[in-house]
């Protein structure tokens, strides 16, 4: 009888124990790291023709009540600057955008004044957003002779992509992140953790990574299109090369854009259909970096009148 009671009570006691969650165990992929990096680089090359958006961070601030009382800067926004730096560096790291510096542009122009060399480029899209949710909580469980304590920091960021020409906000994304530290003890033995200040930064970092992940996975590439740089006899030099997915032998169409007419319905400008003026074939490439590269093409059909019209553009046939 006594044995039965013990057997019944023991599992109940164990079930009443507050236990710490299992810590993730990271496994290395069964592929050498160098090979992984090489594969990551190779998948960056586009399968289809596309070009990267030129983006600049217009505003990225902290709009929550957290972190606005102590250690603030002249603009009362310490977290906003930190988050803006995280966003910019992650946009660059994603490899999916051409990122232009805006928050510290005065430092760049200062250097340009010293070097007497300026070549600032305008962005197609402004990224505007903020840290919209941010806070900390402490929770935990209490069981039979045992307890756990979980410190959690949660953050949410909202961003939108705004077309510079029309001010049309054409894409938005929300990212959420969470960081926690869990400690637990049984009968006075176990782990302890005091206030972990890095959780705040980690939660913001995770939220920003999440929003970049949404951009990378959901923001579709724009229809590929480029411009004619120069025409010499039958040779045509165009912007863009290998990193935009162009290959030797590709056939492209040189088009002349139609007139822009303002729609009374939407108020936006609508381009009338373009007219094809020539067909060109890609023969080779020039330029070192993705912002400097171009292609050398040959006219196969039609002709490109000189002087070059600003309405000319190149696209897939």
């Amino acid at each position, binding site marked *: 009888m006594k044995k039965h009671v013990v057997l019944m009570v023991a599992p109940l006691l164990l079930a009443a124990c507050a236990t710490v969650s*299992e*810590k*993730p*165990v*990271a*496994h*290395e*992929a*069964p*592929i050498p*790291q160098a*090979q*992984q*990096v090489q*594969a*990551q680089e*190779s*998948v*960056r090359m586009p399968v289809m023709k596309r070009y990267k958006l030129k983006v600049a961070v217009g505003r990225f601030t902290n709009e929550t009540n957290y972190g606005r009382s102590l250690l603030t800067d002249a603009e009362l926004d310490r977290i906003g600057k930190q988050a803006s730096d995280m966003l910019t560096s*992650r946009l660059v*790291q*994603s*490899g*999916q955008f051409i990122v232009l510096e805006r928050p510290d542009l005065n430092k760049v122009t200062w250097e340009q004044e010293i070097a007497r060399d300026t070549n600032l480029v305008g962005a197609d899209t402004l990224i505007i957003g903020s840290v919209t949710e941010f806070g900390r909580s402490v929770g935990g469980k209490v069981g039979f002779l045992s307890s756990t304590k979980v410190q959690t920091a949660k953050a949410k960021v909202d961003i939108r992509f705004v077309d510079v020409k029309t001010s049309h906000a054409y894409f938005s994304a929300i990212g959420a*992140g969470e960081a926690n530290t869990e400690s637990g003890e049984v009968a006075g033995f176990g782990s302890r953790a005091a206030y972990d200040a890095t959780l705040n930064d*980690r939660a913001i*970092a*995770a939220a*920003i*990574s*999440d929003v*970049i*992940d949404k*951009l*990378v*996975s959901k923001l579709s590439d724009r229809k590929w299109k480029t411009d004619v740089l120069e025409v010499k006899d039958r040779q045509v030099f165009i912007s863009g090369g290998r990193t935009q997915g162009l290959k030797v032998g590709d056939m492209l169409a040189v088009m002349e854009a139609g007139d822009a007419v303002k729609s009374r319905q939407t108020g936006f400008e609508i381009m009338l259909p373009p007219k094809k003026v020539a067909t060109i074939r890609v023969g080779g490439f020039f330029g070192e970096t993705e912002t400097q590269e171009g292609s050398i093409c040959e006219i196969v059909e039609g002709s490109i009148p000189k002087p070059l019209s600003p309405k000319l553009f190149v696209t897939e046939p």
Partner: protein
Amino acid sequence: MKKTLILLSALFFCSCAMPSTAVRTTDTRPSLAFEGAPEGATVYLDGLLAGEAEKYDGQPGVLLVEPGTHHVVVKGRDGAVLMERKVYVESEIKTIKVH
């Protein structure tokens, strides 16, 4: 003999209380976890076979990857693509749901 012992034990206790400083770089590589992948499903990371999805279900196994953008594909036992997407990770654990 007694004095030597006292001296040695004093030294021993002193060494116990010595502060230690260590400066090191930390591995902040991110990880991927695949939730809901069926039995026998395999993970392809940037076109390379990374192993069975079950091993990286987040309970507690996760797959360590390089920071940045990756092309991730999960294939079923029959080779059918169950999930294919671009993923961006920096230093956190990203859970990918496979339906």
